[in-house]
């Protein structure tokens, strides 16, 4: 075997993901064509943007010098609504999702219950909170009660799915040990399944509490009560200093919730 006359003097990094050269070329051309089409279809009214820059500046000033005082009554009412909505909806949502989660676990439930529960989960996960909120507001009237229902409904899909997946992954030998003592189905759930999934269920509930607070800040925009409604009003009135204050409060509460829930989860597990 003859040696090649010349070794390449430079090294090129081999491609990592799409290894076929033709595919790579096609992909690159496709991306460029798409970008041209997409950017072309975005109409921007630059004079409006330019006018808005001044407002943007005012907003940033409002963010840096938030005004908590002048709208404090509205803000505190929105906060109370948001926080109470968060807690009640998480408690109710988790309480409902436990039986649904057990029903959606293939190793505990008969087939027909399994399909019903999985269908409930799919419906609850498919629609966004805000769309559900629109419907609940139309049905139950404005206010935090509609928000509470929305968040509870969304919680069911989240907790029940993760709980069901967790139950399906439990250590079967422990379940078998309990079963071999002649335990009934209830005893099986209580002594074999529950101790194994409880830490995770508590962790998930705390995580969902955190998510529900964030969502409660949003669904107010469509009239479901909470701090989102206050924020919407503040922005509509161009009171950017109050809006900045509300956003800072939301960020602070989310940060506190995130850190304390991750601390609690570590403590519990």
């Amino acid at each position: 075997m003859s040696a090649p006359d010349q070794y390449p003097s430079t090294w090129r990094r081999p491609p990592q993901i799409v290894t076929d050269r033709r595919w790579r070329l096609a992909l690159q051309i496709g991306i460029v064509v798409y970008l041209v089409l997409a950017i072309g279809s975005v109409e921007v009214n630059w004079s409006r943007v330019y006018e808005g820059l001044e407002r943007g500046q005012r907003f940033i000033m409002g963010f840096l010098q938030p005004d908590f005082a002048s709208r404090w009554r509205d803000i505190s009412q929105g906060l109370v609504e948001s926080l109470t909505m968060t807690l009640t909806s998480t408690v109710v949502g988790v309480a409902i999702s436990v039986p649904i989660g057990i029903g959606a676990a293939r190793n505990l439930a008969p087939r027909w219950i399994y399909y019903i529960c999985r269908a409930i989960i799919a419906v609850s996960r498919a629609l966004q909170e805000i769309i559900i909120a629109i419907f609940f507001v139309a049905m139950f009237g404005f206010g935090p009660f509609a928000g509470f229902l929305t968040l509870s409904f969304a919680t069911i899909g989240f907790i029940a799915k993760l709980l069901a997946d967790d139950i399906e992954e439990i250590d079967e030998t422990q379940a078998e040990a309990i079963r071999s003592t002649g335990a009934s189905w209830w005893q099986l759930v209580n002594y074999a399944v529950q101790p194994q999934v409880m830490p995770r269920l508590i962790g998930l509930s705390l995580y969902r509490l955190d998510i529900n607070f964030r969502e409660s800040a949003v669904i107010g925009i469509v009239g479901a009560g909470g701090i989102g409604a206050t924020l919407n009003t503040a922005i509509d009135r161009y009171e950017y200093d109050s809006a900045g204050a509300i956003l800072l409060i939301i960020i602070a509460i989310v940060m506190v919730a995130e850190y304390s829930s991750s601390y609690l989860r570590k403590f519990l597990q």
Partner: protein
Amino acid sequence: MTEITHYSQVWTHRTPRKRLLLWGGWLALVALFVWCWQLMNENTIWFFVADAPRQAADIGGRMVPPRWEYFPELMQPLWDTINIATLGTIGGVIMAVPVAFMAARNTTPSATILRPIALFIIVASRSINSLIWALLLVAIIGPGLLAGIVAIALRSIGFVGKLLYEAIEETDAKQIEAIQATGASGAQVLNYGIVPQIMPAFWGISVFRWDINIRESTILGLVGAGGIGLKLQASLNTLAWSQVSVILLLILATVVLSEWVSARVRHAII
């Protein structure tokens, strides 16, 4: 040695003290729940709640049959929605990469100043929902696609930044050391030591976020930021429930499709 004088006749899961604590905890939770419930429902008008089933039946009756003639009108907003999500994701990812490198412990240029700033950017972006970003941006730069794209981009920074910086922190130090041992400069270490390691995670995260962004961009129109949400808002305002059901079905189909695409791509990469 002391003699054990009492054997418990019945086995129990927990000691009495633990049981008491547990009951106390549950009691506190129930009390808190009841208190919150009362506080929340101070202004609830129960007449409307009692009336809800009738309202639901009424809306349901108006929603079927869906008005399919409305469907062709939705194609342009749908294209806009996909553009908002895609361009927003691209913008967000571009902004998130430097933030992630600043936030990762092993690549941050200064752990005392830049890292906390980067972490704050991530938390701030994550805690404000894209709808709120859109609300602000519509007020600032006016209604339209641009507000939606920027809102999606700002919201994506936190998500992509957080996952990416965790991926950077989890890189294998040995490979980086091997590159350093060849006398590579800082930029070369980044390029040949870290980037190849995080590449699959990077694409996976981006596609995952794109999928979430499709979902979120469908509703941005509710506050005027363009896309199919504008049509939804218009139909809701005119109480055209038969059009609403067409829009919702279309949104549902888009979301399911994008989820499928994202799952396939992530499966292929990782």
